[in-house]
């Protein structure tokens, strides 16, 4: 029995080996942020899926198979987070009104609470597409992050920007390899609705001005079907169907420095194509707290310290009712005076 237990323990300890993956980027020397995605309270099926999707999104510097139990408190996660070098928590929870997502920086906070107004799972997104794309090494590199529309100068938005910028490892323009940029996370803030659109895309580069057939031929190295052609030259010269997004080709082209894959050669123009991977969320920033799920409320969507205000109002009402009787007489006198004044004016 004892031996069995030892073996089991060894298996359990194994994840710590991941530490070798590096808390520090060995090219730039930056600290790499890591994250935990977990739930507070019991989640229904689709939300559990969303949690899994979020973990995949946060790869590779996250615990994909993080096991949580009912009795795990936030303190437990915090205790593990220290030695593991985890810097961010993403917590999913749910009330009868709607699901919520909290994004927190670990030891001290702050905590951003988002209300998830709408969401679609990665599987839903894949189902809606004709050809969902998932290359093998898609999740081996961290995603880029694009924040758009956050520059309104409001404090909580700035904090949101910084929080999300720091959730993924920084990119050094001088050393980054373009082949490692495979995914992108977009957060788009809409000023009018105050909603944040959260999207996750895969990046694909395609050479410009090459027909689809030739591109596929170069990519796959498979013998093409030439049955219907008169001559081999037809294969090259005959144009296929027009590309689906020929219109904004100009804006989406990039000149590469180095070769990227088989098809994208250096110093040739390539078009950037994005395809959604999912999950997809529409978030609403509800509250910002100073600490890790505790502390003073810096920002609240429903007014700063709405509860406190309510209390004050009640107090003032009580006071008013006390004073009213006393003041009634004087008020009447004032009115009388005003009346007389009016009469004088006329």
């Amino acid at each position: 029995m004892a031996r069995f237990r030892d073996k089991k323990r060894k298996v359990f300890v194994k994840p710590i080996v991941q530490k070798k993956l590096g808390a520090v980027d060995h090219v730039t020397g930056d600290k790499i942020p890591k994250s935990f995605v977990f739930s507070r309270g019991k989640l229904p099926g689709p939300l559990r899926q969303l949690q899994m999707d979020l973990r995949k999104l946060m790869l590779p510097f996250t615990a994909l198979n993080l096991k949580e139990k009912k009795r795990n408190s936030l303190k437990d996660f915090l205790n593990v987070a220290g030695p593991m070098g985890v810097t961010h928590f993403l917590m999913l929870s749910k009330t009868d009104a709607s699901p919520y997502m909290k994004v927190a920086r670990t030891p001290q906070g702050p905590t951003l609470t988002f209300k998830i107004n709408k969401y679609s799972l990665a599987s839903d997104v894949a189902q809606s597409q004709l050809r969902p794309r998932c290359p093998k090494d898609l999740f081996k590199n961290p995603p880029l992050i694009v924040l758009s529309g956050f520059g309104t100068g409001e404090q909580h938005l700035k904090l949101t920007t910084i929080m999300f910028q720091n959730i993924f490892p920084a990119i050094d323009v001088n050393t980054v390899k373009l082949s490692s940029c495979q995914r992108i996370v977009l957060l788009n803030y809409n000023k009018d609705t105050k909603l944040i659109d959260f999207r996750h895309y895969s990046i694909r580069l395609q050479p410009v001005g090459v027909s689809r057939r030739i591109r596929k031929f170069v990519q796959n190295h498979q013998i093409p079907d030439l049955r219907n052609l008169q001559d081999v030259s037809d294969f090259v010269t005959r144009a296929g169907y027009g590309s689906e997004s020929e219109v904004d080709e100009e804006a989406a082209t990039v000149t590469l420095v180095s070769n990227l894959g088989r098809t994208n050669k250096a110093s040739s123009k390539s078009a950037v194509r994005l395809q959604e991977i999912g999950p997809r969320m529409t978030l609403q920033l509800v509250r910002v707290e100073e600490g890790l799920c505790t502390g003073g409320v810096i920002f609240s969507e429903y007014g700063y310290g709405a509860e406190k205000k309510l209390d004050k109002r009640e107090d003032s009402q009580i006071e008013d009712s006390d004073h009213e009787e006393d003041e009634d007489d004087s008020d009447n006198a004032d009115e009388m005076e005003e009346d007389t004044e009016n009469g004088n004016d006329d």
Partner: protein
Amino acid sequence: MTEETSITGSGGILRKRKIGKKKSNNAKKKMKVFQGTGEKVKVDRKMKKLFRKRVKEYNSDDDDDDDDNAADKSFLNKNQGAYSEKNGYGTRKLGADKLDEESELSEGEDDDENIEVLPTVTKFAEGCRAFRIAFKSIIKKSALDDVLGPILSGQKKLVAQKLAEEESEKKLRGEAKKEKLLIGEKGHIKPSNYLDSHEKFLIGVATKGVVKLFNAVSKAQSTQKGLNPASSKDEKVIKKRRKEAFFTALGKRSASSSDTSAKVVASGEPPSWAPLRDNYMLTSCKLKDWDKMQETPEDEDVGKSSHGSSSDDD
């Protein structure tokens, strides 16, 4: 001729016994006569009719009938063979004879008891008919057309009530489950197959960001072509080239101030010159004092938003 075989009540039996005694003697005599002669007896039609009529009228309950019966017997004795047609009757009589013989042993006591115990008399034929009708009606009833199935009528109401209760409970439970599921699915939306304008706009924004980053990368990395930034050998050369590129960029910058890399530099803290710091060109926004550096980024944000949709790439 079912009426022939009619169960007789106790009183009848009692009286019959005495008669039977006589009869049995008669029968014995008759039998002897019968066997002895061995000839076929001819029965007139008229006689037959009469016999039948009498049999129909025969009722064991009445005392008078007994007399008739006795007369019959005597008559029968005269016309032997008349009974050959009505065998059942004959055999019954024979059985009765046997009974009589047994009852002879304890005659006096039995008589009194029998009278008290069996007061009512029902004809076997009538009982049979009633039983048949009842049985048929039960068989005819198919359990299918009744929802509850074969149930004693007394409990029918109770069972129905119980079933109704169960059904309502089931309904309630189903509704609760559905509600729970609905709450669980709240906010979950299946995306449509086509890209609507909003999605296209978002993809456009993301593409812009990616293009910006890639262009910046290509600009930065064009200086270090053919060198490996990870190896220590190339480090010096790369540093030199970067410096040169930076100074040339500085010279240009006075002419055109909008530059992606410059933006990254400018977002650092103002007091010391950014390129001199160690974390130059890295993420310059520190979470620690995010609320202290208000002025410089704000200006920048305004500039960005004037560009169009502002996008920050990391």
